[in-house]
């Protein structure tokens, strides 16, 4: 009973925060509401028995997306007043309200019309998980049963980063992204970055390693590492690397390339792309995860840093 009341309260709070992010006049106020919303969604994932999803949502949905949007809102502050002037008229608002209400109503009807019993692949995963050698069913799905999805995702991330980079001005190509952060070297931010970053790296490696048998894995770990990297940059202790640096580019593609190489090993050894030879599933999964970790960390950190903005020092 208490659990149901807590779930209902959480749902109401989420709806209120969603309304807040839409109606707030100031973009930064709306984004602060959105960050709280992202963290509360992580709690919903716990209620829905998705601890792995909760970790990802808290790190990416609330954390990285929030940081990205705050950075953008701060840069675009001057354009907000003009946007307020072109607010749409009452007719558009009413039509939009009716359309949104119709979509919600249709989805509500769909929720009540869902089939019983629900279709599920849980028993199929349970029957086959022993062959992968990992204990966490999510990791087994991500890297064995649906490894193709994860491979394509790793490639999509690199392509998105290329898209972001290509939006920089021509003279900055090969240069460093974003601005050079400066902070008081004896200030609280620099102190915080020095103390928190090593702890964060250790926790990230633990989450990475524990992901084989417990909630966690490379995505959550890479997000945490990227956050620590950004914290060190924002405290002025390190600068973002120039995007033309060769070692950086190798690091970006090593994960997807290792993943594809393992896929071809499967083609020769057991007759299908991304299939693992008997007894080799666990070692190959560890190879893929270890190669993806640095690539994902670099991609997530550089996506947040944005397009190259400073000329190459060469």
């Amino acid at each position, binding site marked *: 009973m208490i659990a149901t009341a807590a779930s209902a309260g959480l749902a109401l709070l989420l709806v209120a925060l969603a309304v807040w992010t839409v109606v707030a006049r100031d973009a930064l106020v709306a984004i602060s509401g959105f960050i709280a*919303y*992202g963290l509360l969604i992580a709690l919903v994932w716990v209620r829905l028995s998705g601890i792995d999803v909760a970790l990802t949502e808290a790190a990416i949905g609330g954390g990285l997306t929030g940081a990205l*949007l705050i950075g953008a809102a701060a840069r675009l502050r001057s*354009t907000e007043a003009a946007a307020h002037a072109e607010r749409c008229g009452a007719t558009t608002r009413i039509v939009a309200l009716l359309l949104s209400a119709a979509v919600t109503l249709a989805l509500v009807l769909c929720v009540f019309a869902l089939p019983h019993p629900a279709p599920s692949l849980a*028993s199929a995963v349970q029957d086959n998980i022993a062959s992968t050698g990992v204990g966490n069913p999510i990791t087994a*799905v991500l890297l064995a049963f649906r490894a193709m999805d994860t491979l394509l995702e790793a490639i999509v991330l690199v392509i998105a980063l290329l898209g972001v980079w290509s939006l920089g001005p021509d003279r900055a190509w090969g240069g460093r992204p974003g601005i050079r952060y400066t902070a008081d070297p004896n200030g609280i931010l620099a102190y915080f970055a020095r103390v928190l970053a090593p702890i964060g790296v250790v926790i990230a490696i633990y989450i990475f390693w524990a992901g084989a048998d417990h909630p966690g894995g490379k995505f959550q770990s890479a997000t945490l590492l990227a956050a620590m990297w950004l914290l060190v940059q924002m405290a002025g202790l390190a600068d973002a690397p120039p995007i033309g640096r060769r070692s950086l580019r190798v690091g970006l593609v090593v994960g997807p390339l290792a993943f594809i190489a393992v896929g071809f090993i499967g083609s020769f050894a057991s007759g299908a792309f991304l299939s693992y030879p008997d007894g080799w599933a666990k070692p190959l999964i560890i190879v893929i995860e270890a190669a993806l970790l640095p690539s994902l960390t670099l991609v997530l950190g550089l996506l947040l840093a944005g397009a190259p903005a400073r000329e190459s020092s060469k």
Partner: protein
Amino acid sequence: MNVATLYGLCAAVLIGIGLYGLIVLPHPLRKILSFNVVGSGVFMLFGALAKRGADASMSADPVPQALLITGIVVAFSATALAVALVVRVIEVSGSATLSSEAPAKGKPETSGPS
């Protein structure tokens, strides 16, 4: 009402709120924010379906949950690309408008989805 149905209904409301913001708010950054609200609602609906797939051995269907992790990461990369596009449009045109009726600084404005 079980927890899956409750959050399924909550997700339907969130999608509606986000869709309204996406249509009505004029600033492209606010449209991106609203689109993320829609996205989180879609993810939550999918998560409710995963919860319904629970059986004796597992508390939820792990296949949709794994796809959700992939989806959240890809949604972040799409948001980062959209934000970079908006920043670039404003750097070049000096204005955040998506309206085709008010070209800024005499340059032709290309309106597009954010």
